[in-house]
């Protein structure tokens, strides 16, 4: 590996812009957030009311935080499990040489990403409502249900609605990630496999997945982390409701800390950090489990 002092200089130059911007606009705010979490602070008065770990204790003891956490984890797992395989399949499909109108289909699948979340929430509120919504009109007319289903009006179905709408909205983003990752796979390999008579699924499993593995891991990480931070869809689709049934952690933070003056920046910051730690533990746990399962499968030669 090159390590000569000439390289050393360039390494530094290459790292410099990122370190400066990242340090200033991500690391410093995070440190400040950690600092704020130790105070009761309304964002306006000077930082004087030191409470140490008081905010963390309050959050730990708050049943609504745990409700929000549960909803968030359920959402993250479900949404990721749906969107990753589906977007991969679609991405593979939309990069096949034989497919016509590729640009058109890619654009259509990507459209929801450009739509501001506020508009997406409004549109689906109209489409899903039981009075005159498109979904219910369709289902009732085709005799699939007797009475209109009220997805957003009941606690357990509201979360399902959020999962589906969020998947729809973010689908194009992961499709694009996969399309980029698939560039690592030379077309010749697929052609050779075709000659050997391999089916689509076999090609996917034996060629595609192994070759995009490093990027796939990163994409999976991004997918889970973004799913854990779900916010915009909750605000516009259900406002955390009905009641508090579809509260997620980001919405909890927003509602507790920033929705009414005087703001509670310390409390919100503590919730954010606590959640970050819990999320990290959760994701690492999943990774450890996954690696363990993989190793066991290799041991058994499956």
């Amino acid at each position, binding site marked *: 590996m090159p390590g000569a002092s000439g390289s050393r200089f360039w390494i530094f130059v290459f790292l410099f812009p990122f370190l400066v911007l990242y340090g200033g606009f991500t690391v410093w705010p995070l440190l400040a957030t950690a600092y704020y979490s130790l105070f009761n602070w309304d964002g*306006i008065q000077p930082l004087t009311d030191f409470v140490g770990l008081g905010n963390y204790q309050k959050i730990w003891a708050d049943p609504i935080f745990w409700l929000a956490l549960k909803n968030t984890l359920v959402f993250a797992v479900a949404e990721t499990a749906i969107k990753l395989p589906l977007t991969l399949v679609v991405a593979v499909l939309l990069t096949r040489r034989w497919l016509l109108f590729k640009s058109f289909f890619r654009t259509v699948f990507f459209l929801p990403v450009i739509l501001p979340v506020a508009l997406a929430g409004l549109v689906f509120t109209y489409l899903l409502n039981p009075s005159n919504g498109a979904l219910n009109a369709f289902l009732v007319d085709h005799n699939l249900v007797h009475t209109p289903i009220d997805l957003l*009006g*009941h606690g357990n179905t509201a979360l399902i609605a959020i999962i589906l709408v969020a998947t729809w909205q973010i689908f194009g983003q992961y499709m694009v990630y996969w399309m980029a990752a698939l560039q690592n796979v030379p077309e010749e390999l697929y052609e050779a496999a075709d000659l050997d008579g391999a089916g689509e699924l076999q090609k996917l499993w034996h060629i595609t997945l192994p070759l995009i593995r490093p990027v796939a891991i990163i994409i999976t990480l991004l997918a889970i982390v973004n799913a854990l931070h779900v916010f915009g869809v909750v605000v516009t689709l259900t406002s955390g409701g009905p009641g508090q049934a579809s509260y997620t952690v980001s919405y909890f933070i927003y*509602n507790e800390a920033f929705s009414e*003056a005087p703001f509670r920046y310390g409390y919100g910051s503590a919730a954010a950090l606590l959640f970050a730690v819990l999320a990290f533990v959760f994701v690492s746990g999943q990774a450890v489990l996954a690696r363990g399962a993989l190793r066991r499968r290799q041991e058994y030669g499956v």
Partner: protein
Amino acid sequence: MGRLTKRAAMIAAVLGLVGCSGGGTAGTPPAASAAPVTLKLMDFSTEQTAFHKQVSDEYTRLYPNVTIQWVSIAQAQYEQTLPLAFQSKQAPDIFYWQKEGSNSMNWLMSNSWIGTVSPDGKVPSDWTKRWPAGSFQNGINMKNGKVYGFPWQDTQYWGPGYMYLNKAVFAQAGLDPNQAPTTWSQLADTCATIKSKTKAYCMAVPMKGTDWQRAWYAMAAGNMTDLLFDYKNGTFDLSDPRMLDTFNYLKGLYNKGYFAPGVQDKSFSRQQFAAGQAGIYMDGPWMVSVWDQLGFHSDGYVVAAHPNPDSGAAGALSSTNSTNDYWVSSQTQHAADAWKLIQWITNPTGFFVRNFLKNQFATLAFADSKKVLTDPAWQQIFKIGDTKGFRVSYPDPLLKCPALSTSSAYTDASALHPNWELQVMVDAITSNKDLKPAAQTVVSTRQQVLASELQKEAASGLNVSLSCYSFGTNGWDFTKSFNPASYPKS
């Protein structure tokens, strides 16, 4: 010596006359400048943007050296950016703030955000006469004899508690909208008729986010109070039997299918009503202009008062001196010009009032809204608002215990889980649960915070206690207006 003072007096008189050339009221001491001035105003009334442009054009026509820059942005963003504006010394000259209700002045002063309304804090009596007596109170918009704020919206007519009836739906059901249901049973019967005889829903009740409050305030007021705090006994009140009764009544209507289905936001419910898909909608007088924008005018609906329990009204809607909305900022460089503008705006017969009311944005506390708002819907609203016992003035703890101006106990207690009461109510309705356990949790949690914080503050020397919040001992009840003379003399 004598001649000098005489000449000085003459010069002062001349200067005084020059200073009085604008405004329209006598006695504005420091003269507004003649150099070019830009006054920046900020609020979140984005629907008034075109009107603001009219206002600034007219004002510049009258006073060519003054330019008015009136900026309105969406409410959530407004509340986030205003503190940052102050922090970075970019605050506007006049701004809108009423989040803390009647405690707004104290809160704004503790942040050092506001200055007096006029440069020296003194105001002429013919300016204060524009408001009803008792509008300027120490601790609410005055401090140490200086005036900091002025009531913007009137509080007699402006607020929740009105019931709107869709004429077309009622006609279809064979009912007369001018004979609005006045009791709870009558409302239930009306709904039964509408449901059986028409394809429309009886009531459009939004429940998303905080919108449940619209129907809730209207109905709860009839049985006890529209507030989530019981100022008679000094406690949060969702678990009070009367509040639970009101809730169970509404839940009964929901279970019988009288509400339009779904958990909707207010826009949706309002459009449902305007489109004739629902017969009844409850909200405040702002609906007149909202529906006008939808092309649904007052010939399509009737306004009535909210129904009361069958045994008669046991409560009334609340009104307090809490609409001191616009403030002069502490960072303004043009205090005199700002004061001149405020006087011009609050002229009851002036350009601003005439056009503001013509647009039906709100009813103003310093104007005779009744003369200008002639739309039949407004006439109905005024008639209802004038009815005795519809809306009464509530007591204000701040005036009973002035030391509360530095207390944060109540804010802490009510800011814990904002809108918690509304959320548990919507939860109980949509999952058909009993409200009582959740209500008791909410009330006891909040009350515990309030009591313990007050105790801590009292222990550190502040003259506050839980009794500041209960007025039953002062002889007040929910159906009566509180007599200001009952406040202890400070």
